[in-house]
């Protein structure tokens, strides 16, 4: 047998391994996804029952309900993705490895993104049915993807920071909500306009702000994650 060699691990391989590990652990443990789906469905159904929406306000209020559901689901997912690593000091296994710290960030970001998308695959069709809104419009799907990513970009950074704190479940939303406000507000506004069937000229300001926020948060994560993890 050829002797085993340790080479500098490639970033994409590390990200892929982290994603595979998180997905496999979740599929077998079923600790997170089931809870997220139940929570998200409950939110959508309760709001639908409570609000009894008129057609004229359905798009604007419906967009709000959709984003409340996504934001809370993403917050729960972020807390869990990092808490699972901390429970058995598994994060130390990652920190011991000679990998770029950014690979850990992107692995965790993609895990969180994947979990929220899996929840959305179940919840968004139910939402479309209950609220009678054209959720499947390509532009709305783009807003959903960009908004979710925009929320998770600073969320992953802050979840890594909060994971070391005792009251991390409380600390994460307290830190994240103010920071992510531009993403949340622009995502809600863009969804409102798209669901109401507005012209691009009315959608563009919120949509562009959403894209800009994503780029800024990505740049901040690239600049800060190393220092944050090794501090």
């Amino acid at each position, binding site marked *: 047998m050829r002797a*085993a*060699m340790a080479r500098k691990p490639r970033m994409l391989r590390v990200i892929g391994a982290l994603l595979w590990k998180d997905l496999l652990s979740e599929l077998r443990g079923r600790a997170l996804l089931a809870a997220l789906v139940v929570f998200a469905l409950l939110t959508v159904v309760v709001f639908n029952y409570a609000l009894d929406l008129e057609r004229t306000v359905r798009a604007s209020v419906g967009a709000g309900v959709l984003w409340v559901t996504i934001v809370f689901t993403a917050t729960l997912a972020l807390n869990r993705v990092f808490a699972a690593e901390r429970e058995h000091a598994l994060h130390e*296994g990652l920190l*011991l490895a000679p*990998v770029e710290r950014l690979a850990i960030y992107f692995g965790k970001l993609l895990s969180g993104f994947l979990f929220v998308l899996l929840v959305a695959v179940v919840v968004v069709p139910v939402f479309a049915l209950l609220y009678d809104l054209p959720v499947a419009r390509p532009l709305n799907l783009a807003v959903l993807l960009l908004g979710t990513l925009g929320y998770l970009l600073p969320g992953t950074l802050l979840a890594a920071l909060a994971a070391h704190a005792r009251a991390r479940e409380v600390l994460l939303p307290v830190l994240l909500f103010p920071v992510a406000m531009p993403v949340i507000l622009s995502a809600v506004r863009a969804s409102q306009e798209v669901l109401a069937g507005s012209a691009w000229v009315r959608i563009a300001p919120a949509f562009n702000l959403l894209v800009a926020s994503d780029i800024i948060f990505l740049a901040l994560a690239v600049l800060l994650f190393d220092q944050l993890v090794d501090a």
Partner: protein
Amino acid sequence: MIDVRGVEQSYAGKPVLRGVDLQVAAGEFVALFGANGAGKTTLLRMLATLARPARGRVVLGGFDLAVDPQALRAVVGFVGHHTMLYPELTAFENLQFYASLYGVEPARARCDALLEQVGLQRQRAERVRYFSRGMQQRLAIARAILHSPRVLLLDEPHSGLDQIAAAQLDALLHAEAASGRSVLLVTHDVQRGIALADRVLGLDRGRVVLERAAGAVSATELAELYAGGNGA
């Protein structure tokens, strides 16, 4: 292979390490003794890059912690108080995951060879959640040596093991040192540490106060080491 000079560290204003000097040659097995709070775990975590020294120099496998921590991580294997194994993954999947992090090639063959070496080939496809403490510890050793590190750091690896599992672990550690790795073992099991090591060191309140060849250390010296640390 391990070269530590003048390392200092303190937590909340309380000094934990006070000018520690420590050298371990290639292929040498060193046991580190000391009472609770002597600074053993802090020192080991520092060598494994999980903590940074406030002062002093740490060089492992020729790499300086302050200059190139990434390269240093590649030459260190660490077994701490936690196994760092994912309970929902199988023994093989755990090793395969860590092989990806360390860039081990060919990963599959290396993982299988290690499972054979630690006596877990039959449990290859079983989830770690269902492993006994001894099996988990053997797999943790396999994880730590997966990338053929030049330095192996072990923090009380025998804790929680029954006699048979502890003896299996001893054989494994002997083989690792014989293969040329520098091994630094922290343990409260003085008899076992002396039996395994070439040299023993004693740490007391953040200082190295004892250094002897394993065969030359006396019971009185060890008793004094532990009595001193416990404030007697």
